[in-house]
């Protein structure tokens, strides 16, 4: 990406450029919308939340007196009488990563003022998120049906159920919040709020396509977190 043009400010490259930006007045991140910077800082904080969850999980899994259940058995699906490990989760991960792709395209077409295309891509992203949450609900109900609960687990250590439901639940909440915002933003895009600069209902801030990019940051983050959860729960 090329640097933005700022009157009276000369961009330098590399670490010298970073130091010069940090030492300059007005803004630290040149040409970056405040909302984008704010989302990045929020995501940094959220990273610490998920890190605390996952580190607690590692500690909990490492110190249970009863053995941890075997993930390739617990998470397997029966297809035509054959037990296929990690089938559902592979599909879920694929759907979520794909929705990241549609999100990135929505941001691109938003900035290119292709309003309708941007809106449809946002809806596709929301649909991807919804599918993910739906499949997660299916997996939860399958495990609950087999007797796994937050406080008990027929396959081994009871902490398995506790950590699994808590962490995937927390992540699923993130996805659901993302879906809600994607739907609202899709509506706002179709209605042209970002083209006319219509003020937000609550915030009274003028609409701008940068909002879609900010939501995109959040959505990519939620996907990235899922990759870690996937690795720690399903592959370990």
């Amino acid at each position, binding site marked *: 990406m090329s640097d933005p043009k700022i009157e009276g400010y000369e961009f330098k490259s590399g670490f010298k450029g970073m130091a010069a930006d940090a030492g300059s*007045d*007005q803004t630290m991140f040149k040409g970056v919308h405040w909302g984008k910077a704010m989302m990045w800082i929020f995501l940094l904080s959220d990273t*610490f*939340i998920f*890190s*605390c969850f996952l580190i607690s999980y590692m*500690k909990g899994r490492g110190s249970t007196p009863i053995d941890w259940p075997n993930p390739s058995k617990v998470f397997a699906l029966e297809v035509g009488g054959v037990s296929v490990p990690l089938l559902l989760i592979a599909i879920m991960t694929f759907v979520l990563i794909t929705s990241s792709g549609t999100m990135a395209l929505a941001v691109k077409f938003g900035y290119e003022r292709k309003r309708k295309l941007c809106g449809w891509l946002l809806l596709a992203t929301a649909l991807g998120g919804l599918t993910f949450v739906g499949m997660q609900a299916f997996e939860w109900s399958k495990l609950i049906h087999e007797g796994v609960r937050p406080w008990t687990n027929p396959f081994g*250590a009871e902490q398995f159920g*506790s950590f699994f439901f808590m962490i995937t639940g927390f992540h699923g909440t993130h996805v659901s919040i993302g879906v809600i915002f994607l739907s609202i933003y899709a509506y706002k895009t179709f209605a042209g709020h970002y083209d006319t600069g219509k003020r937000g209902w609550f*915030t009274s801030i003028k609409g701008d396509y940068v909002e879609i990019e900010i939501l995109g940051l959040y959505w990519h983050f939620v996907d990235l977190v899922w990759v870690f959860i996937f690795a720690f729960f399903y592959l370990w």
Partner: protein
Amino acid sequence: MSDEYDSNKTIYQAQSSETISGSSGTVSPDMDHVRPAEVSEQDLYHGHSFISKWVFCQDAKVIGVQYFLLATFTGIIGLILSWLMRLQLGYPELASFMTAEHYYQFVTMHGMIMVVYFLTALFLGGFGNFLIPLMVGARDMVFPYLNMISFWMFFIAVMVLMASFFVPGGPTGAGWTLYPPQAILEGTPGSGMGIILMLVSLVLFVAGFTMGGLNYLITVLQARTRGMTLMRMPLTVWGIFTATILAMLAFPALLVGGLMVVLDKLLGTSFFMPTMLKAGEILEYGGGSPILFQHLFWFFGHPEVYIVALPAFGIVSDLISVHSRKNIFGYRMMVWAIVGIGGLSFFVWAHHMYVSGMNPWFGFFFASTTLIIAVPTAMKVYNWILTLWRGNIRMNVVMLWCLGFILTFVNGGITGLFLGNVTVDVPLSDTYFVIAHFHMVMGIAPLMVIMGAVYHWFPLVAGRFLDEKLGKWHFWITFLGAYSIYFPMHYLGFIGVPRRYFEMYDSPYITSATGMNEFISMAAFLVGAAQLILIYNIIKTLKIGKRAPKNPWKANSLEWHTPTVPPEHGNWGDRLPVVHRWPYDFSVPGAKEDFIPQTTPPSEVVHTEVEKT
């Protein structure tokens, strides 16, 4: 000595760093140039009704005052709880209405209220909201709506916390550290609704704080005015900014730990619950790790100490500089010390857990990091003292609080060296020595800064001076009283009086401890009551106080240079200020007055030896 003083004075003033050679006295046409604005003007939502102007207000200054008042309200509740505790400890025969359960509940609520709902909310929510936009030259926080929600989340958090006093079983009595398993097991007071409401309130507080904290950080990073570089910001802003970063990274651990305790309590999970026996029967819980909670809690808990301390460091630096008419000694060193303390504070948490059972090498590591923090902290203390040295000190109430702070902070810091070393800590842990240490270093010391800041900035908020005479009474009673409370506690700790005990029973140290406990309690009642002087002073001042002129302390930083006093919504009228220098150009040799505001362009001060900033 006195002859030498005058002749050398100018040399001490301008020696500390590079100066612009202004003696040539030439005014070049582009010397006042500041590059144009990068971002367009912020468009603000102006309230029209009483509700949108004063209740659900989006003006950071009003939100700051709201935070201040609500935090003070909870602080007064915390103070009353401490009175009840002192009544029990000093005069148990008068406190027959109190049971041991009540005592534990009061200890817990006092601790949590004072640390989180009073000091954190007051420094970051109160001073942060009021001062950051004014000091960096912004019209408001970057996202005023979110800022407003932040306060109302805090309001709900406080209401939930207060509600826990009225539920069956009362508030939690687990100690402010809320350690499971005991926090959620029957037998601990408030192990039912009390602990749940406490944790819900904390989660709400963290959510609300995150909204505010994002605003503080981004306002500092992305919304400074023209000419305001990071290294021209007042140290107040640096302190609040760094503390906010700490909070954004430390509160997640509390949030996660809190959620897991709630699940242990409500769903019967066993994150923190090992296999336990109760009345001969094995409980349903099993396989969890109580130490894990301690790690999560103190990963939050130790940075929390610096979340309270760093804004205090920053504010006191500004107050000392203004009221001794000298630039702050070693500004850059002060900034890096704040940042360094902030960074190190994430690597010391397990010094709260020396007696919890850890690998001895961990104790070695955490003792080392803890003692390393003393280096930047000591640098700051030296710099405050060197700022005062040969300054033109105004011995007013603000300065008294600052001096009180330095003394108290050094005192509390030195006892910290005792507790930071594993071998010394083990016999002292869970005694009154610990109480004395942390009350000195993170209770009284930041409180003194708050008091100084109230006397300093009150003319800006209300346009009137607080009464100096009442202020001096307030200071001396609080200062001497606080020492009467906490000095004897060091001794109580050395003779082994344990903390959090409801009564002392027939222990061998009872004879020497009883008289001292009565004395401490008397002092505590007096100090608490002395705070009424401040409240009276504020009410009196609002009605008949002396009107403050513009910039009454002759300070340089931007908040005193708004077109209207008190500043209105949008802060700066038609035009944003343009900054040409740091806020510490006091007593510059050659200048007409002993201060040069940040907005003064270089062409007006060509004959002076101003610092190059």
